[in-house]
């Protein structure tokens, strides 16, 4: 039996096409030893949920710069629940005003990282909070 690998999907829901941040994060996860599925820009919440299940990931990292996170992030959590995959952990990043945090946490987002966040802190968070299934 080999060691269980953490699998992560990094996805960008919504309409903005700036995926530099998401790519940097994906690469950083790879360098931390995780297997990262990168799905690119313009993903609908439905596509994200289906892909996460097909890839059997432990964690979905959502990145959103367009301001639509209030709708998009909770919708991904909701769809995973509908598909009986609520064990897949969802975190969010991007330009997210502090007043939205509570609402997002309440909807089931497990962590939020804003542009100031250190990449190492995100990796540490994953190591401490995500148990490969």
């Amino acid at each position, binding site marked *: *039996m*080999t*060691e*269980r*690998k953490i*699998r992560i999907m990094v996805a960008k829901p919504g309409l903005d096409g700036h995926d530099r941040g998401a790519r940097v994060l*994906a*690469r950083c*996860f*790879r*360098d*931390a*030893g*995780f*297997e*990262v*599925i*990168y*799905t*690119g820009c313009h*993903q609908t919440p*439905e*596509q994200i949920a*289906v*892909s996460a*299940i*097909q*890839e*059997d990931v432990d964690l979905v990292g959502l990145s959103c710069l367009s301001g639509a996170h209030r709708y998009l992030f909770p919708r991904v959590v909701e769809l995973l629940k509908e*598909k*009986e*995959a609520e064990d897949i952990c969802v975190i969010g990043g991007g330009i997210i005003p502090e007043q939205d945090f509570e609402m997002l946490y309440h909807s089931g987002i497990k962590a939020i990282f804003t542009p100031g966040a250190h990449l190492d802190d995100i990796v540490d968070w994953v190591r401490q909070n995500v148990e490969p*299934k």
Partner: protein
Amino acid sequence: MEQTKKIREGNIRIVSRLIRNLEDSEPEARTAIKNIFPYTGKAHIIGITGSAGAGKSTLVDGLISAFRKKNKTVGVLAIDPTSPFSGGALLGDRIRMQKHTEDPGVFVRSLATRGAMGGLSKAVGDAIHVLDAMGKDIILVETVGTGQQEVDIIYNSHTVIVVLVPGMGDEIQAIKAGIMEIADIFVVNKADHPGASQLLMELKNMINMAQIPEDGWPLPVMTVESAFEPIKFGEKIDSLAQNILKHYEYLVHSDQLKSRLHRKTMVEIKDALRTCILDQILSDLEANGELDRLAYKLISKESDPYTLAEEISSRYLKKRPGKPYQKKG
């Protein structure tokens, strides 16, 4: 068996977890393969190989559309490399296939090589069995970006598509061995780039020289371009799909299907033996520290690798005491 039933019904959660357990060599995954094995062997398995960035994923995306139009269900296994330094991997093939995500007739799974050398992943053979048992009519396997030597795809597919891109020029002469020998269909991709017609000509020359027998497969060479013009691209890909299906018919009507199956199963049984015998012994030796002690015996020149290996093999393989390796007459 509950799990087997769920796999055959196409339960995505069960299928994708099983593939993961196979990648991680979980013991219960092996049991699952034992159970589904009788239900495999129906799918047409197509390998897509070629250098990094040649446009393999873009072709796979097109082929999914083409086969879906023919009402065939499609499974995709897309392999990308594992980083030798971190052990992590960035799997990006799926980006090109997003438009099929919500089609329940399509299942896409990314696999990391995890150190496998042949352009695939160790779990790919078993993952193919899973998609096959799940009832996928067509299984597309995209290799990592290959050089000349990564040809393991031939042991895992019925039809191999080798994707080449212009700009290789005379290099074809140099790379005639290896990857050039495994093609059932050549695709000159990005034929909108300069050098395409020369590449095409060189390929055709190479094939003419190979003198295919009259009842042989006439190795098609196809050009594909304009991946960004859906209608034109679609037409090209439809005829590629047509050739792929024709190739399968050829395999069925000649004896080739049987001999390919034999070639595949020989590799499969050898792999299984290695897993069940060699891996077992190695992990034993590693766990009890003997492997370390053996290594020191080599460093101190107390012994040599073959003497030690023969001792171990005579201990483990009781019926056939450690005779030195002899070539059969």
